[in-house]
């Protein structure tokens, strides 16, 4: 299947500031990809270039097989980061208007709009003015405007921001449903847990440069901290003594929990079996880094790499790998 989005060597500058630098991205058709990065990293600029709202200074963008998203706008649903509605327009009129701009025919349009409004718990606001809706409701309204025409490609810029947990879950389910329908989805977010739960693949951008582009499994493998978390059954057990076991580099207490660092060459299942034999555990697990940890790790490493140079790399070896990612 052809790729839905192909970005090659794209650079965009605003005056002296380089917003996006030599950026590459390929999103396969039908994929659900998370696009993460700190504030000002270049996510929105990249998305706007994909949408042909902004145009790159260098490089090429291809969307759904077209050289410009302008040629495929009817097949794209876009939820921008800065959400807005016509305040004085009624909800139904607003959705009709956007649908018509997306090339939808009038026949059956109202029925489809009403169905979506019901689905989003907005059934009773169709005749209300947009300004009468709460921020969360306006956001749901915009999501409807984004998916009403059943696009092949959904680009969602921070779709979860400002939503309460119930609506966040509703939106997550809807995104998954759209993906199951066959839509390719790329969404940017700061809520890492959402990216972890939703995405098979994550792309991270920092200071305009791509620093991560992997499947979730590969990311976890790459950023494996090689730490075992242990909570002994007997709180008085000599956990410090485990330091003598082969494959264990260090032991550190963290409240009720102990963090056991493994050497690079150790085999985690073997080490865990040895630990269990030595001290019966109430709980023992191989620590899995969260995407948030990885995000913070990469961003911090990038900052320290720029500020502190080599010294920080020597004292914090676990950041070396991330720093290499950033600069490599």
């Amino acid at each position, binding site marked *: 299947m052809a790729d839905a989005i192909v970005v090659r060597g794209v650079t965009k500058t605003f005056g002296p500031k380089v917003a996006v630098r030599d950026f590459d991205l390929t999103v396969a058709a039908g994929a659900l990809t998370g696009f993460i990065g700190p504030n000002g990293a270049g996510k929105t600029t990249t998305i*706007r270039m994909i*949408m*042909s*709202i*902004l145009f790159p200074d260098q490089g090429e963008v291809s969307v759904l097989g077209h050289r410009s998203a*302008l040629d495929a*706008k009817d097949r*794209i*649903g*876009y939820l*921008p980061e*800065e*959400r*807005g*509605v*016509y*305040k*004085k*327009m009624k909800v139904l009129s607003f959705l009709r*208007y*956007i649908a*018509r*701009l*997306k*090339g939808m025919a009038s026949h059956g349009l109202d029925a489809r709009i009403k169905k979506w409004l019901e689905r989003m718990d907005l059934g009773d606001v169709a005749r209300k003015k947009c300004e009468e809706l709460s921020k969360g409701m306006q956001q749901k309204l*915009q999501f409807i*405007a984004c998916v009403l025409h059943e696009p092949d490609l959904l680009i969602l810029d921070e779709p979860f921001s400002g939503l309460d947990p119930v609506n966040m879950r509703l939106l997550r389910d809807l995104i998954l449903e759209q993906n199951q329908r066959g839509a390719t989805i790329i969404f940017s977010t700061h809520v890492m847990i959402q990216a972890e739960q939703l995405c098979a693949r994550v792309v991270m951008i920092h200071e305009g440069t791509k620093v991560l582009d992997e499947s979730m499994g590969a990311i976890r493998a790459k950023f494996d901290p090689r730490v075992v978390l242990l909570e002994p059954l007997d709180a008085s057990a000599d956990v410090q003594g485990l330091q003598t076991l082969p494959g264990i580099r260090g032991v550190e207490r963290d409240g009720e929990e102990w963090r056991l660092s493994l050497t690079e060459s150790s085999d985690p299942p073997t080490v865990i079996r040895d630990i269990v034999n030595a001290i019966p555990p109430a709980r023992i697990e191989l620590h899995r880094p969260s995407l948030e940890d990885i995000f913070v790790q990469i961003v911090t490493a990038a900052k320290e790499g720029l500020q502190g140079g080599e010294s920080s790399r020597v004292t914090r070896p676990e950041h070396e790998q991330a720093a290499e990612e950033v600069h490599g």
Partner: protein
Amino acid sequence: MNRIFWIAWREFLATVSTKGFIIGILVPPALIGFMLVVMPILFNDAPPKIEGELAILDPTGEVVEGMTAYLEPEAMARRRDDFKQKIDAATPDAMRRLTAGTGSAAATQSVLDAILGETPRIDVLRLAADADLESEKKALTIGSAQDGGRLAIAVIHPDAVERSTGSPSFGSYDLFVREKLDDRIEDAIKAGLRETIIDSRVRHSGLDRDEINALTHVRRTKSITVTEAGEQETNEVLNMLLPAGFMILLLMAVMTGGQQILTTTVEEKSSRVVEVLLSAVSPMQLMTGKIVGQLCVGLVMLVIYAGMGVIALVSFALLGLIDLSLLIYLPILYIIAYFTLGSLMAAIGAAVNEMSEAQALMTPVILTMMVPWILWLPITRDPNGTFATVASFIPPINTFVILLRMSSNSPPPMWQVWLAILVGIAGAYGALWFAAKVFRVGLLMFGKPPNFATLIRWVRMA
């Protein structure tokens, strides 16, 4: 194309369905109706009748008698009739025809009556030569102007009628009036004293006042305009007002559409809905749709007002006052002028974050649009002069200038009209080109509002 239509349609509906627009459309005719119908009614609520006395201390012995005759109610009523006839004579024929048989003529007379107020009754009291002026003045502070008390005291100078020996000039008079005396009464008293004193002076000089009046009066006359089509009485008022009327109509329609496009663009940008729109249409489609939508808003306004004007002219059989081809040129010139201003306004709207920031960028545009107001008088006076001719080819004011000239009594040659239209189209194209570039870059620029240098940079960037 379909998308441009939907954008234009929304823009049009969103504007014409607002209270502001409906009120804006209805207020001017309502004001005119108010002036024609309600004002006379209000003025008919005449000021209270004034009765009282005018005390005169007259050492000459000549003024009291004359003033008594001057202030007689019959004499005052006669003078009012003369004044009304003078007003009627000064009214242009077309205006007189316009008001004849509509009740407006009667309304005009009643307005005049109201302005003049009810004829006052003023008795003249001669004060004794040795009267104490200070104690006489006290009467001015008692009662009111309506209760028959004293209204004023006139103290005639002894040399008011005959010069003092060796003096080159005459004396005059002093006038003491009560508080809040109606100025029309004071004016009547002053006019009476002046007339009476002059009469006395003329008589004492052995001359005849009527003869002097006859000798010094030359009747005003109206010029006759000679054209190829024949001769007609020159109508200076209509010659000046008609071009101004057309220009105001054009300016109003252009400004309404221009202002609205600015407002809606700023609103779309500040409410961030613009990015949603840009995901569905290109900036150029968005701008074109908006411009076309507001163009229709201006056209609606133009049709309503021009239609009302034509209906009025037809009703009063005055359609011959205007060249009907103007009604064809008016929308053409409107479209050109609107595209020029509208696209600049769209660019400004896209460049700023909120309306308050737009003021700095709008000022030169608005000032340019005000130029025709400043040029109205000189161009109407000399519609085919060098100045008017040159201004006809300088966009963006050329559409207004050529319309002023076309609606004047000396229209320009047709080649100038079409050249002005071509220059206007070129100007509008230039404005659209500039606006499209600023619009595309500016729409997603937030933060510090740009200055003109920034706009130029954006044009280069786009």
